[in-house]
């Protein structure tokens, strides 16, 4: 290293030092420690006891663990695609050149910053089987509404549905992406006699694919960690049908003080998250299109 390089190296490190310390204390150490805990029996008040792969073996014969994992995959399989469609449709509506569009944007975006804990309480009442708004409306049309959160076949779906009130955040990202598409592309397409659907399929959708990639990664990681809504609305019930992975992990860690077992769960979640993120990035070369990028 030359002298000025060395000087810059020191300066650079000094500026990032706070993050570097935080990284060591709140990321590197916890990752290693939780890996170690996952091979131990550890109840906080006593020292961790090495038990090898015992926690992992127990997990796969733990009915609730398997249930929480399949529930979480169900949440992800619902939340990610439905959230994408709702977010994208909202964005397509919210870029229309109407004078009062700011008003719609504000109202549709607002619920996405309302905290889940507040939304959960409203949601329970909104979807209440007998007194809730939804079943009143369904009843008005002569439909006998389901029990929603009280029916184990409907509960997860109700949570997925309720989450769509937060789709304004996704819509915002898509709006920015759509507004960035050069107008000439559409003008050329119109001259060639393209229909609106063709323009969406051939121009809009490919050109917003970077936003889709971002959404898929964030939404998948978020769905795998779903906690707030089911924890507050159902506490996992009925019949554990809404019990999510992180809820079960939380229960072992902080209700039963079973830190070793919970750490093994944390590591399995870590591996699943990395695998899915890797999968999304791996396939992205085939469908993500960067306009004007050199290839």
């Amino acid at each position, binding site marked *: 290293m030359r002298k000025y390089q060395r000087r810059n190296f020191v300066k*650079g490190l000094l500026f990032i030092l706070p*993050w570097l310390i935080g990284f060591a204390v*709140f990321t590197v150490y916890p990752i290693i420690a939780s890996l170690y805990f996952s091979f131990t029996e550890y109840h906080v008040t006593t020292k961790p006891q090495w038990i090898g792969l015992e926690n992992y073996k127990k997990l796969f014969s733990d009915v609730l663990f398997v249930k929480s994992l399949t529930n979480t995959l169900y949440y992800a399989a619902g939340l990610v695609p439905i959230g994408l469609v709702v977010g994208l449709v909202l964005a397509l509506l919210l870029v229309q050149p109407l004078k009062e569009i700011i008003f719609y944007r504000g109202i549709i975006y607002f619920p996405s910053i309302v905290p889940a804990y507040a939304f959960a309480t409203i949601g329970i009442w909104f979807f209440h089987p007998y007194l809730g708004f939804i079943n009143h409306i369904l009843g008005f049309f002569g439909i006998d509404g389901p029990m929603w959160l009280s029916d184990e076949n409907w509960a997860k779906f109700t949570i997925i549905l309720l989450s769509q009130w937060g789709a304004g955040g996704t819509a915002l990202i898509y709006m920015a992406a759509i507004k960035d598409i050069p107008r000439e592309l559409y003008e050329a397409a119109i001259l060639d006699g393209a229909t609106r659907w063709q323009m969406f399929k051939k121009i809009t959708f490919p050109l917003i694919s970077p936003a889709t990639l971002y959404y898929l990664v964030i939404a998948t990681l978020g769905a795998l960690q779903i906690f*707030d809504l089911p924890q507050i609305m159902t506490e996992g019930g009925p019949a554990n049908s809404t019990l999510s992975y992180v809820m079960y992990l939380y229960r072992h*860690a902080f209700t039963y003080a079973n830190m070793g077992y919970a750490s093994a769960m944390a590591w399995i979640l870590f591996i699943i998250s990395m695998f899915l993120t890797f999968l999304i990035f791996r396939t992205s070369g085939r469908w993500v299109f960067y306009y004007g990028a050199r290839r």
Partner: protein
Amino acid sequence: MLGKRAKERLRLNIMRLLLIVVTFVYILPFFWMVSTSLKADQDLFLIPPKWFPIPPEWSNYKNAIEYFPFFTYFKNSLIITFGSVLGTLLVSPLVAYGFSKIYWPGRDFFFYLMLSTMMLPFAVTMIPTFIIFKKLGLVNTLWPLIIPSFFGVPMHIFLIRQFFNTIPDDFIDAARVDGASELQIYWKIMLPLSKPILLLVGLFQFIGSWNNYLGPLIYLTDEEKYPLALGLPLFLDRYGTHWNWMMAASTLAIIPIVIFFFFAQSYLIEGIKLTGLKE
């Protein structure tokens, strides 16, 4: 046949109609909340429901406040949120500067390392982090919810760095030639030029801390230390069948967010352009 203009006008009006319907759907749960919060007990069970409770039953709010120490929770939420916003605004831009305006070997390595930590699930680090704070004797205080922001928040560092990168180096090089130190450049040139992104990052941190539920749930046990995130679910547990009180408490919990949103919405909605996510 319709002319081109008329066709476009028709299309826009269809869009408008759709938007009005969608907006109505997005506003409904809040309308239902406020409406319920003003209903008398016996009106809760009316079929069909009363849309507008007349006369409004204001006593629900009095009852809610009696059992729901809104101001204690509100105060704790404010402390956590302002502490974290302060930490983020003090530290994240500093780190971003080191990742943007100083050219040093290894910088990209550390930068990508930081980006990769953004994908780390909170659950993975949650348990050892809890044990660290337990050993420090900080469990059941608000500190574990504030301290981490003083070590820089990767997402925010990333956003600020993107913004810093758009500021030309010429500015800074000129100042360096004049003998300004990096800290002076950071403080006197970069920060004043970066107000929009700092504002946006501050708002993001505000929302993140205000809405955080799992963090307080892990660390806090005393009810007088609860933020709204724990207070509202606690009220639901205890008085959940008094739907009108419950909705009054929910309305109270949401009013600060409405006020926040009223002032912040244009920055939040337009601010997405600053984040560079569109690229």
